[in-house]
């Protein structure tokens, strides 16, 4: 792995946040080498909400998995720095059902803390806080199969936040939800995130979602995944999902991104 565990303190040129340089990932498949991610460079300033949109199969999930350390890059470097010399921690919110069916809601949400052998009082406080924040306190003893899809995704968000990491990686966490639930959970995510303002990299195929949540939106090309454009989203925080959608500027940004994505989506569909 090319990823340094910590940033050398002497390296003053290194900004805090996530710096990715010339990241490439190729997979060996039956039909030969496939380049999923091609020479991607990006910078996510610490404390910002960074969203990535792109057509399906553009390698955005692969980028996130490399950032989270679940895949090793073929080449390129990833540097995550918080300015302190402690190792940087991250929590991922996965696409799809990632809860352990054999643990109840409380134990699922406490998983990260338990794996770190956190103090009992810390676990009680952190998990209690985020279950409350996500409206799950009443369901602490329920098992995942007793919950709706929206509630299960709330648990996995609570699990990531309760772990109190330096960085969050979110892989289309709301893609399986219906429109109403999605809006509610986006709103909740914004409220929860605004408390701590930790760095977030959030992947989505929804332009709307990318703009609502992000400080910056990175648009990717169809396979092989490259950076097409990074657009700044100037709306102030705290944001309200509904109010945001009313603003004329919002429509313009969404339009811009769509215009830029259109060729890619059409290209990918052919």
């Amino acid at each position, binding site marked *: 792995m090319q990823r340094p565990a910590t940033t050398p303190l002497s390296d003053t040129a290194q900004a805090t946040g996530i710096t990715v340089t010339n990241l490439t990932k190729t997979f060996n498949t039956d039909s030969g080498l496939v380049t999923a991610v091609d020479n991607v460079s990006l910078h996510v300033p610490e404390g910002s909400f960074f969203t990535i949109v792109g057509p399906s199969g553009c390698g955005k999930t692969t980028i996130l998995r490399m950032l*989270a350390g*679940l895949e090793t890059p073929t080449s390129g470097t990833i540097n995550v720095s918080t300015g302190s010399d402690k190792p940087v921690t*991250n929590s*991922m919110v*996965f696409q799809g059902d*990632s809860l*352990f069916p054999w643990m109840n809601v409380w134990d699922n949400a406490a998983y990260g803390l338990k*794996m770190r052998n956190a103090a009992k009082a810390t676990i009680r406080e952190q998990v209690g806080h985020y279950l409350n924040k996500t409206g799950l306190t009443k369901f602490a003893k329920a098992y995942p199969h007793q919950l709706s899809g929206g509630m299960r995704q709330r648990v996995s968000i609570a699990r990531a936040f309760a772990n109190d990491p330096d960085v969050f990686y979110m892989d289309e966490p709301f893609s399986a939800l219906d429109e109403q639930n999605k809006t509610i959970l986006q709103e909740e995510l914004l409220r929860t995130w605004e408390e701590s303002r930790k760095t977030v990299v959030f992947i989505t195929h929804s332009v709307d979602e990318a703009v609502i949540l992000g400080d910056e939106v990175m648009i990717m090309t169809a396979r092989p995944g490259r950076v097409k454009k990074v657009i700044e989203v100037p709306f102030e925080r705290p944001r309200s999902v509904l109010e945001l959608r009313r603003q004329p500027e919002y429509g313009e940004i969404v339009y811009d991104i769509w215009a830029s994505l259109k060729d890619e989506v059409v290209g990918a569909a052919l």
Partner: protein
Amino acid sequence: MSLKTPLADAARSAAAKTTPAPPPQPVRRSLVKRIGAERFAAVLAPLGLLVLWEIATKAGLLNVQFFPAPTTIAKEFARLIGSGQLLDTTMVSMGRLSIGFIIGAVPAVIVGIIMGLSRWVRTIAEPLIAATYPIPKTAIFPLLLIIFGLGESSKVAVVAIGVFFPVVVNTAAGVMGINQIHHDVGKNFKASRLQVFRTIAVPAATPLIIAGMKLGVGMALMLIVVAEMLGGTSGLGFMIWNSWSTFRVETMYVALILISVLGVAMTLLLTEVERLLTPWNRKNS
């Protein structure tokens, strides 16, 4: 008065729970017709068979040397229970079976989980298991007799070996069937190997581990009977063998019935254990 009413209510509802009030006549008839008929048939069929059996023996249609009347078997059953012989014999067999089961199942679960988690261990262990699994365990009993002698250990050993295989194969399959996303979660939250074992592999594989144990119990029962026939002076297998040599067919039937009851009881016990261990399993709730 204020105390009396809720108490009476509670008593009434408790009574209602244990003995539901008989439904009105028309409903009852349709119940018997629809669901009850099947239940009646399920209970009546074997009872009817027993009655037929009894009549056939009394009428001289069945040779009582091979098929003693059910009442004769029942009398023998009562006699053996009264003398305490049946309980002793059952305890001897169950003792061997339990020890063999534990000696076989515990390492099987550990090896199975490690196989499921580690590709390397799997590569080494899989061909070994594939090569030894098909050998009938009864075929190696003479070898076990040479190694362990005629005493308890050879019987315990054959049960342990018989239990090991279905449990190890099912456990490994259970662990290998774990959704990749759950491994990713473990990795993302920096779970150590031991933590992955404890929090992911064991609970995820529990339903299949228990399925393997149920198969193992059937295997164990068969092997303990054979082992006691071939190299025993006690236990249910010996009881069957001994009643053959003394031509006490009704005793043989008593042992057969008891073995069947034990098999069913152990399977039910494991089902109950599964229900307690996996409250999260959809089919248990």
